[in-house]
């Protein structure tokens, strides 16, 4: 038994578990525009940038997706909680409007759930 390998490995497992599953902080707070929409611009490149969007409850949300790559799986974005989806042609701006939400968090993903984003709704 090699204690260095064993302890090192277990520590690595801890780090991995924390990195992927641990509490995630941050996220970009969105601004409300003149028409009352909370607008978030999201760059789609091998995932969503930013992928954590903080919005206020009770106000409608407008996403503007811009996909800047052609060869990856994120050609479609799905908001399962809202039964909404949109295709994202490369290089085009695509607007997705969502209704005002209750506090909590809502996922959005690519069609096969590989790329993920989160909407965090605060009061």
């Amino acid at each position, binding site marked *: *038994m*090699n204690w260095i*390998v*064993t302890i090192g*490995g*277990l520590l*690595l*497992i801890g780090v*991995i*578990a924390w*990195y*992927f*599953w641990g509490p*995630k902080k941050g996220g970009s707070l969105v601004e409300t525009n003149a028409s009352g929409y909370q607008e978030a611009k999201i760059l789609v*490149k*091998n*995932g*969503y940038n930013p*992928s954590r969007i903080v919005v206020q409850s009770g106000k409608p949300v407008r996403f503007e997706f811009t996909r800047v790559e*052609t*060869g*990856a*799986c*994120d*050609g*479609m974005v*799905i908001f*399962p909680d809202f*039964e909404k*989806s*949109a*295709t*994202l*042609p*490369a290089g*085009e701006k*695509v607007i997705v409007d969502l209704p005002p939400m209750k506090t909590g968090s809502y*996922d959005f*993903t*690519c*069609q*096969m*759930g*590989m*790329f*993920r984003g989160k909407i965090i709704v605060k009061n």
Partner: protein
Amino acid sequence: MDAGNAQHIHGHQHQMQEHVMLSNHSMQDQGQQEESSEEREYRSLMKKWWRAAIVSVPVILVSYPNLFGLGNLFPMGSGQLWWARLIMGLLALYVVIRSGGQFFVGTWEGLKQRSANMNTLIATGVSAAWLYSLVALFWPQIFPRPEMADVYYDVTTVVTALVVLGSALEVKARGRSSEAINKLVALQPQTANVVRDGKEVRVPLEEIKIGDHIVVRPGEKVAIDGTVVSGSSAVDESMLTGESIPVEKNENDEVFGGTLNKTGSFTFKVTKDQKDSALANIVEMVKQAQGSRIPVQKVVDQVSSFFTPGVIIAAILGYIVWYDFGPQPGWVYALIVAVTTLIIACPCALGMATPMSLTTGIGKGAENGILIRSGEALQIAQKLKTIVMDKTGTITEGKPSLTDIVPLGKFTEEELLLISASIEQGSEHPLASAIVEKAKEKGSRPVKSEGFNAIPGHGVEGTIDGKKIYFGNLKLMKEKGIPLDGFNRYDASMADQGKTPMFLAINGEAGGIVAVADTVKKDSLSVIHELKSMGLEVVMITGDNERTARAIAKQVGIDRVLAEVLPQHKAENVRKLQEEGKKVAMVGDGINDAPALTQADVGIAIGTGTDVAIEASDITLISGSLKGVVSAIKVSRATMKNIYEGLFGAFIYNAIGIPIALGVLYPFTGILLSPLVAAAAMAFSSLTVVLNANRLKRLKLKFN
């Protein structure tokens, strides 16, 4: 294998993304672009595969020189072997970068988001094998025993090659699963004969404007939606409705883009924009539905978000256990186990199962004129127990036609028809038009009547050739004192058959009975029989009186009837059925069905029903035929079964593959998987999911 993830998913995405651009280009263009983008991706992956495969050959030869009779050329521990291995290492690096670069890009982007996917697993596995080999080559002295300083460049190149090949095959197979939309999109012709300044000109589709007149000849396709202004023909609308019998088109009838003109020539006026056409709407709806999620996917999503980090953790644990307790050399066994585990795990088989089958199933429906609006509707449709059908317009044609003429006095059938048609000419009542239509059909020309007067709730009166005519129900006859001599018995028996009898009195004498009825659609009986044999209860709902309703129900084999239900109470009745604990579908067409369609677990709008009904429905049957109800349920059952099969397969694959890769069989059987076998299994597993979904295309929907 999200090796492919980046790769194997995006071919599919390309076809999904087209619809936003429909407004800019003709749909035909889109169809061609789609094809080529998928084709392009396939070719690019195949190029990557060949590059990796060709380089793999010398790498394998040098990895096992004794096996291939090269032992003399590269003796163990010789300088030649060291240099050969160094060159192989560089070749392997070249393969990893040129053929497997996307794994690393995908991994890095994922890590920035604190998420991991298939790319992460492949990238980690491949680079672990390569880095180990590098250390073994340059610093063999740090290994406790010299034989541990072996190289694994063959793992690096072969795993990359196999995963890329798997992705390529998958792109190919997936292209076939989205064929339905491509076929729909490709239906529209690119040019049309437009009449400009009295002359016909061939004009590209995008230059056609609302109001243009377009000429269509036999064998040509209708370019865009419009209304016939002159000529007549039979048009094959099967691409939209799934109904194979051509539809007769005359002046003022609507025609739809993409349908095929069969026999005659006609001119139509364009009434819709390209992007508002029926075909564009269908394509749009199908695409939306294919992208939607079904409730079962929520569980899969949960599993997926734990899967990849879980596998990495399992691989590290495997490494520790093998290092500490496994046979010597510990480093080597531990490394093989960890790399194999990373490579065999395939989260994307799980992630793909649902969308792949959903895409194929919903596409299959669309090909047959069944529009399923969401994945959720599809999942619920499979659990249905009760089908509520609106009578008028759903089970029946929805407009009355003449069924019987019974002479009772000295008049013949022809005379009775002529007189009743003549008297009803001026009436707006739907019953009247049924009689007038029948008379025209028989070639009799109604004559002029005088003093026409409608007696509300009773019938009509008037004078023809100086004879006083009364035409109406039994009440009217009694009121006018017409001697009936027992022929009022017809009233009851006809009502029992669902017919409405109308009595004709001529100069105070009973002349005969003309009966009209809303006739049952020709498919209703067989459809209801089929539904019952599928284990479903069929309920008829109608505002008609109990007697007529029962009569129709009996004709089509329905046992349960909800009669005399006011339109505003239909939804309430559906809710009561739901309270029996069953999943209920409502089939209807009219505006007053909309609340009931919404209330039902699955609302099925039938025919070219009003937009309101379609909007309120979960499933729309474009052709007016009830057969679509059976097909819709068959599609949903088959698709859900296929989804569960795919998910089950993906789950079992990982549940068995990962423990074997970790070496659970080793203590008992001495079996330890090689990373090369793991790579092949992984590529195969995601391909299996796609092939499974493709099986749905062979689903038979026709029945007699």
